[in-house]
């Protein structure tokens, strides 16, 4: 019986192929939109999360300046860190994998006829471990270079290509502002940061050399601290805060004059924002699915009116009320389900194309596909029921007379 009803519904769709297709279009677009947007949204979330993880595993940023800024802005001058602070962290804090002090400035760099404005970071070899960088060509700094403050540098991939094109930069001497500096290595390329800046646009040099030759002071503006394990970041952060309050002699009723930021927190915040956007887009797409459902109801009502005579024939031939009800209901459900399946195919394809275009991973979830399909079938039942009932309750004599 159910098989036969399905058969009748499929015959009906074939009889009105164009109309069936147009009716399904609403559902197809709705389902495809839901799947595309949600999939891309999830892809973006995963992408951002992995990019942030790529900034450095279990990374803490230690910056001078107050965390809590009142309505009056920053109160008092910002007191920078010193190499002694870095040493203290290294000595006193457990669970630390790597530590890297940073002092930096944007400078014009010149090599031959080329020049390029870039960020120059004075740091230590800890930078590579803390920030997940690797030297792809050449070598990191030697201990004696770090100690003596020799003027050597390691180039980011962007700087290398801007200044040297295809030439081998190793051993070459370039000018950073007024200082001359010898290239000893090139960093591997990382591309854009999750916040949109080019991570390869930088030059590294030993902190001592930077302080002495470029900055002319002993300030450290930023300290990267990388914890040994992910679950240690909270403890390491707390210990550093305690240590720095001690070192800076901050009274217990005073605010910190520095702040420690856990990149995991940032990642969580960014991910949650992207997730919210995903839900929002999904909700908007769901509305279009609903509109598609109303389209189905519309067409089914028109179809009932148009096929009044046919319904009369069926009733005369011995169709019961529930046969007719079921026929129209099944027609609506088949329409919306076939639309749903087509929508899924279209949605997956466009998500795939979109992911390629946006450079985010394709995160297909069976869950969202099942939900979209279930929803489209449900739309068929809900919006198909009313027209189907109209059809089933027709008076056979009236229906047969209908022109």
């Amino acid at each position, binding site marked *: 019986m159910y098989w036969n009803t399905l058969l009748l519904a499929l015959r009906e769709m074939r*009889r009105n192929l164009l109309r069936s297709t147009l009716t399904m279009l609403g559902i197809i677009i709705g389902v495809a939109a839901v799947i595309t947007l949600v999939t891309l949204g999830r892809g973006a979330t995963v992408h951002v999360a992995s990019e942030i993880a790529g900034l450095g595993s279990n990374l803490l940023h230690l910056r001078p300046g107050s965390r809590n800024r009142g309505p009056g802005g920053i109160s008092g001058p910002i007191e920078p860190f010193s190499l002694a602070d870095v040493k203290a962290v290294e000595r006193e804090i457990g669970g630390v994998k790597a530590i890297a002090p940073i002092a930096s400035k944007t400078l014009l760099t010149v090599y031959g006829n080329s020049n390029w404005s870039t960020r120059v970071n004075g740091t230590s070899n800890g930078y590579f471990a803390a920030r997940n960088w690797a030297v792809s060509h050449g070598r990191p700094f030697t201990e004696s270079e770090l100690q003596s403050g020799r003027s050597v540098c390691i180039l980011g991939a962007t700087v290398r290509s801007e200044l040297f094109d295809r030439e081998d930069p190793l051993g070459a001497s370039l000018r950073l502002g007024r200082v001359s500096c010898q290239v000893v290595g090139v960093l591997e390329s990382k591309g854009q940061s999750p916040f949109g800046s080019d991570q390869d646009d930088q030059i590294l040099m030993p902190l001592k050399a930077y302080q002495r030759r470029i900055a002319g002071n002993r300030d450290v503006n930023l300290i990267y601290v990388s914890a040994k394990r992910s679950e240690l970041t909270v403890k390491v952060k707390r210990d550093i805060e305690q240590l720095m309050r001690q070192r800076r002699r901050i009274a217990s009723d005073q605010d910190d004059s520095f702040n420690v930021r856990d990149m995991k927190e940032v990642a969580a915040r960014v991910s949650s924002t992207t997730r919210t956007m995903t839900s929002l887009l999904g909700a908007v797409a769901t509305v279009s699915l609903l509109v598609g459902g109303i389209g189905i109801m519309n067409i089914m009502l028109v179809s009932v009116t148009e096929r009044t005579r046919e319904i009369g024939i069926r*009733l*005369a031939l011995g169709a*019961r009320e529930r*046969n007719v009800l079921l026929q129209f209901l099944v027609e609506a459900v088949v329409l919306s389900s076939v639309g749903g399946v087509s929508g899924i195919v279209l949605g997956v394809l466009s998500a795939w194309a979109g992911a390629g275009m946006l450079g985010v991973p394709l995160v297909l979830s069976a869950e969202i596909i099942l939900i979209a399909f279930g929803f489209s079938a449900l739309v068929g039942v809900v919006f198909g029921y009313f027209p189907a009932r109209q059809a089933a309750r027709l008076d056979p004599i009236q229906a*047969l007379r209908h022109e």
Partner: protein
Amino acid sequence: MSGAPLIELRSVYRIYGRGEAEIRALAAVDLAIHPGEFVAVMGASGSGKSTCMNIVGCLDTPTSGAYLFQGVDTGGLSRDQRALLRRHYLGFVFQGFNLLDRTTALENVELPLIYRGMQRSERHARARRALDKVGLAGRERHTPAELSGGQQQRVAIARAIVSEPAILLADEPTGNLDTQRSHEFMRLLVELNREEGLTVVMVTHEADMADYAQRIIRFRDGRVESDSTVESAA
């Protein structure tokens, strides 16, 4: 005529509207039709013949009086039960053919069998046999638009007899056919009546079509005016 009647109307009234606007479509109609009969129902339009057919076909119910089908009173049947009675015992042929368009002859003919829940292979076999019987073998795949009026009406007959009904009800079946096709159609009905013992009740207003029947019932103003058995010329 001997034995129990196949259908029997006892003092049947069918009244539309109320009070001033009341219309008596049927008034005190008594009628009995026995298995194997070929009955023509005649009368002017508005005489009540179509209303009578609707009641006999279980598409309508009497306002008062009783309609017995194979000795069973149909008065207590629900809408659904009447649908089941139509499904298992009645075959319809309409003036306007009433085939489903864009649907092949075979699919049209097997429609009543689908409602009976019959298996596909048996359904097809029976539909082919019915089409063969009405002389349309080889036209199974044609849609109504590809068939002539006469052929369409034959498909309609095939659809009516495919379920081997107890009675065939035809409402002005030749109304949309030319004279030659009409006579061909009538000869087919007579053949089915004689060879298969099919009971036929046919509404018509054409005297020469009614002449094919064994019995002619005339309606006038909702009443049976005359009921006469014709001596077969053949």
